[in-house]
């Protein structure tokens, strides 16, 4: 099994072991569930649907995959009102107009409609770009829950056969099925059809152990002790009754802030002072401060054994 190859294997030929090592080399710490889900999506050539709270590393999966396979990342950011024109293709109206004007002035032979609807005037949007890519790209469809149900149905169709028909140009078939990663914050229930087509991955807030590894890998300046404190305290913070629990990004921010303050360990006072870095909601900050000011919050967190705190996010919502 190759551990470091100059040219990565084709996505459809990877092994779980290789994938895990490759992700980790790239700084993405993944547990078994994540590795296997990505692996299956690659091997079965199915889209990967990733759900989880904001900031647990959903989008990152696509980015890492693009780097690991050294290929293009094509991103389709979803939003309310996104339609086929913006997602698939559009004719360049302005350019067509200019061409007509030019032809008129140059007294050129009559311009044919065919000329105006050619490759030259086609504006490729992410989906078409992914379909026509020469190498198997990674297509990231971010926050798919933000789209309208009709667009979701359209997306479902495209993801089913990766064939697009442009009336003026004909049918375009994907040379190879792109690696598709869909992310959702579950703001709207996705359709069953879409869910069923995908390999599903739910990323929970990390366990203490995993978070420790992430902190160590992303903030290497932090001492082992500080990183361990951080991971455990954050795990305990996530058990509070909060509106929005701290995500990994916030853990990292907090760690960097602690470093900047020259802290070597965490205590209740320090936690209370820096609470705004972990929590971005006034009410939540107050909840945490109350808990920290009552004393014993940090020491309580440090006494807990490793591995606890996993799944703390699952109780939310």
């Amino acid at each position, binding site marked *: 099994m190759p551990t470091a190859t100059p040219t990565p294997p084709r996505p459809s030929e990877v092994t*779980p072991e290789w994938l895990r090592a490759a992700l980790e080399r790239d700084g993405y710490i993944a547990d*078994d*569930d994540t*590795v*296997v*889900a990505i*692996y*299956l*999506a690659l*091997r*079965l050539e*199915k889209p990967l*649907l990733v*759900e*989880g709270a904001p900031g647990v590393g959903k989008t990152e999966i696509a980015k890492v995959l693009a780097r690991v396979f050294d290929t293009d990342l094509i991103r389709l950011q979803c939003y*309310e*009102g996104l*339609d086929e024109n913006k997602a698939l293709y559009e004719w360049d*109206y*302005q350019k067509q*107009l200019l061409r007509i*004007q030019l032809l008129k002035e140059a007294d050129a032979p009559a311009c044919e409609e065919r000329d105006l609807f050619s490759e030259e005037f086609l504006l490729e949007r992410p989906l078409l770009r992914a379909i026509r890519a020469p190498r198997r790209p990674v297509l990231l469809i971010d926050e798919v829950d933000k789209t*309208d*149900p*009709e667009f979701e149905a359209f997306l479902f169709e495209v993801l089913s056969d990766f064939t697009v028909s442009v009336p003026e140009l004909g049918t375009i078939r994907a040379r190879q099925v792109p690696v598709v990663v869909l992310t959702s914050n*579950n*703001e*709207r*229930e996705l359709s*069953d059809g879409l*869910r*069923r087509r*995908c*390999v*599903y*991955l*739910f990323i929970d807030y990390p366990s203490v152990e995993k978070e420790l590894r992430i902190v160590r890998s992303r903030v290497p300046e932090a001492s082992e002790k500080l990183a361990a404190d951080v991971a455990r305290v954050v795990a305990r913070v996530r058990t509070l*009754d909060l509106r929005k629990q701290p995500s990994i990004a916030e853990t990292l921010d907090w760690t960097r802030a602690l470093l900047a303050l020259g802290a070597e360990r965490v205590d209740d006072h320090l936690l209370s002072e820096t609470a705004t870095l972990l929590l971005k909601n006034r*009410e939540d900050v107050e909840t945490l401060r109350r808990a920290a000011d009552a004393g014993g919050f940090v020491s309580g967190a440090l006494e807990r054994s490793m591995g606890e705190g996993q799944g703390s996010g*699952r*109780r*939310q*919502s």
Partner: protein
Amino acid sequence: MTASEPRVPRVPRVPGVPGGPPAPAAPAGQPGGSSGAPAVPAGEPGGLLLEENLVRFIHVLRHLGVPVNPAETLDALAAVQLVDLADRSQVRAALRATLVKTEQQAPLFDRAFDLFFARPEERRARVAERRLAKAAREAALARADAELRFQGRPLELSEEQLEAYARMGEEQQARLREFLAESSAGNNVGAEFQPLIEAIVRGHLDRLRRELLEPGWRPPSDPTGDEDLDTVIEGVLRGTPEDSAGRGGDWLLHLDMKDIAETDLPRATRLIRRLARRLATRLSRRYRDTRKRHRPNMRRTFRSNIRYGGVLFDLRYRERKLTRPRLLLISDVSGSMARYTAFILEFVFGLGAAVRGVEAFVFSEQLERITDRLPSAAGRFSETAQEMVALSRVWGKGTDFGTALESLLADYERLITRDTVVIIVSDTKTLGADRAATALERLRPRVREILWLNTLPREEWPGQRTVALFARTATMYECSTLAHLERVIRLGVGRHIRPA
């Protein structure tokens, strides 16, 4: 007295298995429960056994309410063949990624996986244990049936009621038997009294059952008819706390709000927030569904294209704006209504930006405005409710809707506008109903609509004169469960969120 025969009525209840017939390869009553078959894929050759086991496992999932379609079954099969079968964690991850497509079902899947892919001897032990428990239960029910007699005749009681009897204390049992014995032997008490006695006993047992047993839904006794699979299914359901798993607290949806236990309040609050957030997203994006993107705004198009010499180079489109109603909530907080009000307030405030603003009033004898006391972003439920009880002068007194409405009309003129949807939360039981109806008629033409959220079950409406009286002016909806509430707001309020 001995039992003529143990009467254990079978209640043919099927769990909410959504859709999908059982997989073709595993008909429900598959013979040869293969209780000895090692269901561990680990180390097995990927032969027929693997497929069979997988299909049986999927059968279990379906009975647990996890929908799995044939395409997903094939995916799962392909998936397990791609991972290392000796690695339990990989097999689990592979099955989860292909079979479980929502987060809520994951804990259910995990429990099922642990129980189903356990070592054969563990499985056998559990099957045996279940047989014993089942026999014990049946014996207890038979005994209960034998002991609860009226003049020597058995009573018409459900399995649950018999179970409640079997599970209550020795002393209480004796008291109930005494009651039956006394009434059996009473003067002039004939067989015609049996229905009456039965009703009393049933009522008593039902009340006990609510206290003794967990509320809501209970697994049917033999979901698949296959002992091996049933053991797994029951094991999963028993070991699953109600708020995790596929049930996701959703059973609270259909429970009368006043029957939601104190301990379930946090769960109910989370459920309400989730419902409200979903609904808000859905309502506020509704206009996008109907928008016509290609409605050019000619005026702006011409103006901005003058610089191109009049060639229509840069098209401008007309934007559609959304009108959102203001909500004005008037809630009855007398006595039993307080609980409903608290839930409905939580929900309505969870709508956030989908509506233009919420004004909240509570009344019993007098009207009181509580808008300012509600935290803007829908505060924590328990605190809010308790705080309101403590602060409000009107909380929990008699009901006078007429006076309340009159003072609304007199003192809060400015809040009554044409784009206001008034939501009344009340069981329609009030003093001076006619006066109230008159006041309601005066309010009606000045607002967009009046929705009446009636907490009285619909069956009781015909018996309540005031329902028909108020329904003349207000649109009346039944609203005793959270599911009702969601529907009322979706239909009643959603109708008023539309393009201008």
